[in-house]
């Protein structure tokens, strides 16, 4: 049976037009495989290309080299639309679509002509502490934290196999962050969804993941989260990621 997701020698060139630049690649020779539903924390210092990697995995950007495969099929042989319904990206800056909160939640069913799962939407809103919201409210008028959670629910209603989460709790308070983490851990358990979660918070990375992908010096290393966050590997993590971006006890 094919792996859920595979990355083969992926590379992305730097934006720099200087042909003699030292770092021609933002990253290169990146390979990884997800054989079974997994919770992955994607960590690394700023500017290593974590968001770019996620965007490439969602086919919002193109790789310059290498291949991506879902269930054994290359991205070159799957229509982008179908791919994105399987591998769904949730952006760091949540964008609300025109209309009400409910219009946003109904968007997936509208796009794909599927029935709107109202009970699931209600349940997810409740679990993320958004049950107080008037669904007729203009989505753009919501707070940053509300938008972020609505955007997550909107993507979950698509029920993708793989969720790409780009610092989705960066604008949330501790309470809301815990709710998002609990929801996603439970969602993974119930639905078998794999998620790849970019975070700068190493404590969060430890809480939510069983595998850790670390991007550094244009490459990607994979660790078991248990090993990565325990001494002495934790010191390695601190050194690579930078002590200012997270705390590890």
């Amino acid at each position, binding site marked *: 049976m094919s792996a859920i997701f595979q990355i083969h020698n992926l590379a992305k060139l730097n934006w720099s037009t200087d042909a003699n630049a030292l770092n021609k690649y933002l990253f290169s020779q990146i390979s990884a495989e997800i054989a079974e539903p997994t919770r992955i924390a994607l960590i690394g210092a700023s500017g290593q290309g974590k968001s770019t990697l996620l965007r490439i995995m969602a086919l919002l950007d193109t790789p310059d080299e290498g291949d991506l495969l879902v269930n054994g099929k290359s991205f070159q042989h799957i229509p982008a639309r179908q791919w994105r319904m399987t591998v769904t990206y949730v*952006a760091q800056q949540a964008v609300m679509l025109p209309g009400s909160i409910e219009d946003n939640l109904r968007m997936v069913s509208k796009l794909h002509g599927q029935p709107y799962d109202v009970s699931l939407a209600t349940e997810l809103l409740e679990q993320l502490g958004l049950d107080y919201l008037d669904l007729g409210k203009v989505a753009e008028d919501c707070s940053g934290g509300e938008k972020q959670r609505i955007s997550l629910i909107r993507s979950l209603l698509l029920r993708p196999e793989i969720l790409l989460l780009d610092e989705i709790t960066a604008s949330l308070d501790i309470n809301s962050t815990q709710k998002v983490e609990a929801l996603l851990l439970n969602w993974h358990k119930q639905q078998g969804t794999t998620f790849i979660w970019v975070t700068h918070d190493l404590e969060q990375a430890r809480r939510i993941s069983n595998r850790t992908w670390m991007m550094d010096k244009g490459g990607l290393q994979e660790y078991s989260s248990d090993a990565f966050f325990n001494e002495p590997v934790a010191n390695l993590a601190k050194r690579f990621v930078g002590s200012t971006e997270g705390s590890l006890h």
Partner: protein
Amino acid sequence: MTLTALSFTLLFVMGTMMVSIWQKLGLEKDIAIGTVRSAVQLLVVGYVLQFIFNADHILYIILIILFMIAVASWNAAKRGKGLPGLFWRIALAISASELLMMGILLGLHIIQATPQYIIPISGMTIGSAMIVSGLFINHIKQEVQSNKGEIETLLSLGATAQQAMQKVRASSVKFSMIPTIDGMKTVGLVQLPGMMTGMIIAGADPIIAVRYQILIVFSFTASAAITSMLLSVLIYRLFFTAGLQLKHPQ
């Protein structure tokens, strides 16, 4: 009007150039070039039209209309640098609109099938379609840039390019038609349109002149709507790669 009388109108231009020199506006060169160009272009067109009217051959009518469409498409396409194949798409939209308009006008015997009617009315509708195309392209480019987040959010949720661009397309069609619709609402109240004015000056009955002007206003509106809507169908895909990624704005 005699040529001598016509040449006296140059006094207006000279007056404007003198004001420009006096006020150091630096416009005199542009005014001089503009004056020469417009005079030469119009005189050439006058002789060409005279030739075509005398020849009264369908081939010449088609050729001059094709020339008008090519110039209009080239001019409008200048607004969309970085969008490959734009010229042909605009040419197709304007041609379709021109064909439909002329089909209706000639088919229903609203105008006579002579170059004296076909060429000026075609020129006006093609010119209007050119302005609409330029506005449409300018606006859609800006809209794509300012709605990048929304378009990519929709793509992330599995939208097609058509679904992701629906709002941008509708807003661009609406925007491009604003001058035509505003012009239609205020025609006769704010300004007396060129064709009607020309006919009245040439001695036509004002009621007959008004009838033709109504024909032109309706034709403009229909041609603007057809051109704009066709462009919205023909152009939106140019903003995406073959792999359905939004291209980086130019």
